C-alpha cells in the first residue's frame, strides 16, 4: 500500500470546493433566460378532479405558462412506471396503476402534482399556482398499511382490485410447516417497521433546457444515476430519444435512495421548457420534499421462529404487508421482495423459510428504496425475534446467535441467496469485547442506583450489496441490467482520467476511485481525475445505490486498468527492448525487472500518443473501457451492540455506547468507510429513536416539516465505537463487499433490543420517542 493507494486514509480531493462554498449543485446552475416553476399539488389524499381553471393564473404578473396533464398527455408523454416486474404466487403479474406525471382525473395522495406554473420568479410562480382553481370531489381514503386490504377499503386503482399489487411468496411453505411441527419452542411476534422520509439536506431540484435549434434537451437534476434517468426519460416517458437528451447530475447533496427514481418534476420541466420556450428550473422546498419524495420502509409483519430442544433454529415464517403508497415508484416492487425476503436467513443456518409479502396501495406518498431498502426491514424482523427468543428461552442473546451461525461457505439459504464468504464469530467477538458485554450487569446495577434503567441489545445482520448480477436480477424481474462501466484515459503526459457510471453524492469517489489508479501505476493522486455524472461525458452507467459503487463500479475501473496496464507494458517492452512479462509499473516508473532499465510513466504515455515507435500493428493511444457485471451479490455483515440508559420519569433514552463491528471485505479508504458507517448508524438510530411519519385519517401528512419530523441532531447521538474485520469477497477483483447501508441495516434492532431490555417490556414500536418509551414503562408497571 502506498500513501495514496489502496487501504490508505487519503484525504478527499473533492473537499476543497465544498469547504470553500464552491460546490456546484443543481440549484446553483443558471442559464440565460431561465425561469422558475411551481407545482399545484393536490390538497386531498383522494379525489376526483372535476375541473381545472387556469385562466386567472395565466394573467398573473410574470407568468409565462400554466400547463396541465391533459396537454402533457396530448404531447405523448408517458405514464410513470415501476421497472421491476414481480409475479404473484398465482403467476399473475403485479397490478400497476396508471401514474400520470400531472394528474388529470384523479389525485391519490396529498402532494400529487396537478399543474405546473412557469414564471419570471419563484415567488410569482407560487403566487400564480395559488390562483389555479382546481375543483375536486373528495373520495374516501385509506392510509394505514394494515387496513389497505380490508374488505370495503377505498379502492385506489381500477387495475389493482382490493388495493393488492401482488401477493408474493418465497421459500418452501410445506417444508417450513413440517419444520414447525417438530419444534420444541416457537417465538411469535408482530413487528411494525414504520415509514421514513429520506430527507437528503439538498432538496430535489431540476433545470430543464430545450434547445429548439438542435431539437435537444438538457436536464440538470439531483440524481444518483443520470444514465438511468436518461434511459427512462427516453424509453418509457417519450421525452426525447437518448441522443437528443443530456442528463447532468452535478454535485448532489445526499441521496440515500430518494434520488434514484425518476420523478414527475424532471420530465415535466423538460417538457415545459419546450412548451414555453424558456429554460425551466424547479427546486423543492422542504415541505414538498416531505410530500412528494419517495418514502421508505412501511411494513407490517407477523413472524414466527421455531427452535428444537437444543435451541437450534428449525424454521422461520414471515408474513408482511408492504405499503407502496399511491403509485408504484421506479424500483418499489423490488424492495419488499428480492431486497427483503431474500435476507431473512440472516447470519443463521435456517433449514426452512417461508415468507409471504402482500404489497398494497394507500393514499400516501409512494414508497421506494431508502438507505438499506428491504434489508433493514429483514434484519429488524430477524434480530428482534432472535433477541426475543433468547429472552423466552432464557439464554444469552449472544450465545443463541452464535449457536446458529453459518460457518461454512458458500452457503445456500432457502431464500435464493448464496453467501460466498463471512466470519460471523469474528464480528460478534469483536463487538462483544469492545462493548464489554460481559461486564454489563454491573453497569446495569450501578445505573439502577442512580434511578436509571440500563439495557443492552445486539444485532447480527447480513445484507446483500453490490447489486447485482444482471442475469440474476433479470430472471427475478428487473427491467435493467446492474453492471457498471468505466473508462480509463491516460493522457499524453501521463495524467489520468477515470470515467465512471457510478455517481458520487457524498461517497468520495473522486478520491477512492483515484486511489485505484495510484495503486496501480504509482502516480500521484493529484494527477488522477474522476469524471462522472454527465451522460455526454461518460458512456452508459447504472449509478450509485445498494452499496454498489465499490463492488461493481470500482471493479469496472479495475478491468479497464488491467487493459491499460497490459497495453502500457507492451509499449514499454517494445521501447526498452525487453520481454513484456519482465515489465513492472511501480512508483511512477516502468521498469524491466532485475535491470536498471526503466522509463518514467509519462514517457510510455507520450509514446502511445506520438505513435512514432509502437509495436507493429498497435493502435495509438492509451485509453481503455470496460463493463463489469458481478458474478454474485456481496454479503457484508456484522455485529452492532447498543447500550442505553433510560430516564424512567421522562422516557428519554440516552445511548451510552454504540459498537459496530463490521466485515466489509477489502477496504480502499478506511476514513471514508468509517464516515459511511457513522452516517448509516445515525439514520438507523434516527429510525429507532426519532423519525416517525404520521398521516392523519384523512391522509394529511402531519409530519411535513422539520418542526414535526425529528431529524437526528448532534445532541441525539453518541460518538460511535466502530471497527472492521476482513474476509475478502471472492466474487470481485478487489474483494470489496460494500459499506454504505450497513449502519442503517444493523442498528435499529440493536437499539430497540436495548430499550426493551432496559424497560422489561418487549412491546415497543419505532420510533421509541420519550413519549412511546414512557408509555411502555407505564404499561409494564
Amino acid at each position, binding site marked *: 500500500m502506498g500513501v495514496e493507494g489502496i487501504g490508505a486514509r487519503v484525504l478527499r480531493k473533492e473537499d476543497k470546493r465544498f469547504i470553500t462554498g464552491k460546490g456546484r449543485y443543481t440549484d446553483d446552475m443558471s442559464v440565460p433566460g431561465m425561469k422558475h416553476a411551481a407545482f399545484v399539488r393536490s390538497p386531498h389524499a383522494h379525489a376526483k378532479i372535476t375541473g381545472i381553471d387556469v385562466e386567472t393564473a395565466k394573467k398573473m404578473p410574470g407568468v409565462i405558462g400554466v400547463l396541465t396533464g391533459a396537454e402533457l398527455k396530448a404531447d405523448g408523454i408517458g405514464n410513470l412506471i415501476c421497472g421491476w416486474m414481480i409475479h404473484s404466487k398465482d403467476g399473475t403479474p403485479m397490478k400497476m396503476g396508471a401514474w400520470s406525471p400531472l394528474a388529470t382525473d384523479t389525485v391519490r395522495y396529498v402532494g400529487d402534482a396537478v399543474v405546473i406554473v412557469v414564471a419570471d420568479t419563484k415567488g410569482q410562480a407560487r403566487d400564480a399556482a395559488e390562483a389555479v382553481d382546481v375543483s375536486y370531489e373528495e373520495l374516501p381514503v385509506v392510509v394505514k398499511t394494515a387496513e389497505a386490504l380490508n374488505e370495503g377499503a377505498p379502492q385506489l386503482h381500477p387495475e389493482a382490485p382490493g388495493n393488492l399489487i401482488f401477493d408474493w411468496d418465497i421459500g418452501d411453505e410445506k417444508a417450513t410447516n413440517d419444520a414447525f411441527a417438530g419444534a420444541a419452542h416457537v417465538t411469535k411476534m408482530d413487528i411494525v417497521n414504520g415509514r421514513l422520509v429520506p430527507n437528503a439536506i439538498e432538496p430535489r431540484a431540476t433545470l430543464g433546457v430545450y434547445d429548439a435549434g438542435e431539437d435537444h434537451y438538457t436536464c440538470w437534476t439531483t440524481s444518483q444515476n443520470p444514465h438511468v434517468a436518461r434511459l427512462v426519460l427516453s424509453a418509457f416517458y417519450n421525452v426525447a430519444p437518448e441522443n437528443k437528451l443530456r442528463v447532468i447530475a452535478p454535485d448532489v447533496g445526499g441521496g440515500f435512495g430518494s434520488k434514484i427514481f425518476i420523478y414527475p418534476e424532471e420530465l415535466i420541466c423538460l417538457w415545459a421548457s419546450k412548451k414555453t420556450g424558456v429554460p425551466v428550473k424547479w427546486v423543492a422546498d422542504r415541505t414538498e420534499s416531505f410530500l412528494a419524495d419517495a418514502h421508505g420502509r412501511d411494513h407490517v409483519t407477523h413472524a414466527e421462529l421455531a427452535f428444537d430442544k437444543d435451541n437450534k433454529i428449525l424454521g422461520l415464517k414471515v408474513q408482511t404487508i408492504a405499503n407502496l403508497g399511491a403509485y408504484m415508484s421506479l424500483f418499489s416492487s423490488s424492495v419488499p421482495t428480492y431486497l427483503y425476503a431474500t435476507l431473512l436467513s440472516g447470519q443463521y443456518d435456517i433449514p426452512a423459510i417461508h415468507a409471504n409479502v402482500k404489497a398494497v396501495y394507500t393514499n400516501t406518498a409512494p414508497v421506494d428504496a431508502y438507505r438499506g431498502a428491504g434489508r433493514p426491514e429483514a434484519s429488524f424482523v430477524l434480530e428482534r425475534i432472535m433477541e426475543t427468543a433468547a429472552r423466552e428461552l432464557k439464554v444469552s442473546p449472544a450465545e443463541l446467535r452464535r449457536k446458529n451461525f453459518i460457518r461454512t461457505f458458500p452457503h445456500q439459504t432457502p431464500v435464493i441467496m448464496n453467501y460466498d464468504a463471512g466470519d460471523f464469530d469474528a464480528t460478534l467477538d469483536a463487538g462483544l469485547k469492545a462493548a464489554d458485554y460481559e461486564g454489563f450487569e454491573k453497569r446495569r446495577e450501578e445505573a439502577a442506583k442512580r434511578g436509571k434503567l440500563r439495557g443492552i441489545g445486539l444485532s447480527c445482520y447480513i445484507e446483500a450489496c453490490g447489486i447485482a448480477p444482471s442475469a440474476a436480477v433479470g430472471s427475478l424481474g428487473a427491467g435493467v441490467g446492474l453492471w457498471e462501466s468505466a473508462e480509463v484515459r491516460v493522457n499524453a503526459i501521463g495524467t489520468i482520467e477515470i470515467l465512471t457510471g457510478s455517481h458520487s453524492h457524498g461517497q468520495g469517489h473522486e478520491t477512492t476511485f483515484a486511489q485505484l489508479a495510484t495503486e496501480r501505476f504509482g502516480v500521484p493522486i493529484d494527477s488522477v481525475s474522476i469524471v462522472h455524472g454527465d451522460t455526454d461525458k461518460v458512456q452508459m452507467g447504472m449509478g450509485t445505490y445498494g452499496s454498489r459503487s465499490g463492488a461493481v463500479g470500482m471493479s469496472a475501473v479495475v478491468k479497464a486498468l488491467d487493459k491499460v496496464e497490459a497495453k502500457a507494458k507492451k509499449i514499454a517492452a517494445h521501447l526498452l527492448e525487453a520481454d513484456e512479462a519482465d515489465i513492472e509499473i511501480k512508483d511512477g516508473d516502468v521498469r524491466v525487472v532485475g535491470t536498471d532499465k526503466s522509463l518514467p510513466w509519462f514517457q510510455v504515455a507520450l509514446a502511445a500518443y506520438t505513435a512514432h515507435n509502437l509495436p507493429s500493428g498497435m493502435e495509438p493511444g492509451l485509453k481503455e473501457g470496460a463493463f463489469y457485471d458481478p458474478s454474485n451479490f456481496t454479503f457484508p455483515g456484522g455485529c452492532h451492540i447498543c447500550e442505553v440508559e433510560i430516564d424512567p420519569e*421522562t422516557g428519554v433514552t440516552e445511548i451510552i455506547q454504540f459498537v459496530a463491528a463490521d466485515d466489509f471485505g477489502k477496504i480502499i479508504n478506511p476514513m471514508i468507510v468509517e464516515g459511511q458507517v457513522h452516517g448509516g448508524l445515525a439514520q438507523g438510530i434516527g429510525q429507532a429513536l426519532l423519525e416517525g411519519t404520521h398521516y392523519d385519517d384523512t391522509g394529511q401528512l402531519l409530519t411535513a416539516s422539520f418542526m*414535526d419530523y425529528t431529524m437526528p441532531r448532534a445532541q441525539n447521538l453518541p460518538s460511535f465505537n466502530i471497527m472492521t474485520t476482513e474476509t475478502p469477497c471472492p466474487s470481485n477483483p478487489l474483494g470489496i463487499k460494500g459499506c454504505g447501508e450497513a449502519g442503517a441495516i444493523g442498528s435499529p434492532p440493536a437499539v430497540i433490543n436495548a430499550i426493551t431490555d432496559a424497560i422489561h417490556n418487549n412491546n415497543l414500536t419505532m420510533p421509541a420517542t420519550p413519549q412511546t418509551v414512557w*408509555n411502555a414503562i407505564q404499561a409494564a408497571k
Partner: protein
Amino acid sequence: MYETQYHRAASVEEAARLMGEAEDGKFLAGGMTLIPTMKQRLASPSDLIDLRRIEALKGVTVDGRTVRIGAVTTHYDVSTNEELAKICPAITNLAGHIGDPQVRNMGTIGGSIANNDPAADYPSALLALDATIITSQRSLPASDFFIGLFETALQPDEIVVAVEFVAPDKAAYKKFPNPASLYAMAGVFVAKSGDNIRVAVTGAGEGGVFRLKDAEAALAGNFSPSALDSLAVDPDVLLSDMHASADYRANLVKVMAKRAVAEISNRPM
C-alpha cells in the same frame, strides 16, 4: 412569501406612526417566528415595521435587584449578561436554551412575548417572576399581558418597550423540548422570594402559559421536590398532539417542576 413592504423605524414613535399608516401591518423584531410564518404563506402583512434597530429598545440594565430588559435585546445578549447572571441565573439560563444558537442571535424578548407562542420559554419566566411589561402606551403585569394562544393584551399599534422584574431570591427553569422543533413541550419556571413561591408552565397548557397554583401551595409549606410527589396535574387543561399526549405532558410538567425545585434547593442562589 407574499409581497410586503418593509419599513425600518428609528424610534418607537416612528414605528407607531408607520403602523397607523399601514393597511395590515406587523411589527418585526428578530423575525424568528414571523418570517417563517410568512414563508409558509400563513401570514401576509401588507407592511413590516422593523423595530430591531431602535436603540431605545436595546439592552439589559440591572439596578440592585431590579432588572430591565429592552424589548429588542436578543436571547444571546440576555444569556451572556454577567450582571444578570449574578442575581437571576434562571433567566440567563432560559435565554441560553431558546431555540438554537442562530435563533438566539436574532430572536428578542419583546418578539417572543408579543407573539406568545404557547411553547415559548419567556412567558413562563415573566409570569413566575411577576414581571411588568412596559409598552409604548402603558405598563401591565405579566398576568394581564398573556391572554391565550398567540394572544396578548397588546393593541394593534402598541409596542413592547421593555420588561421589568425584581430578581427573586432563587429561581430555576426546566424545560423538556419537543424533539423535532426544540420548542418547549413542557417548561416550568419556579421562583421563590421569601415565602412567595410562583410556578409557571409553558408548552403544555391548552390556553398558553399558566400558573400551577397547586404546586405553589404544596411548595409553600415544604420547598422540596418531594413536596410535589402527590401533585396531580390536570391533563384536561393541557395540549395533546402526536408529540405528547395530555397525560404525558402532565407527567412532564410534574417532573420538570420537581427538577426546578431540586436545582434551586441544591444551589446557593
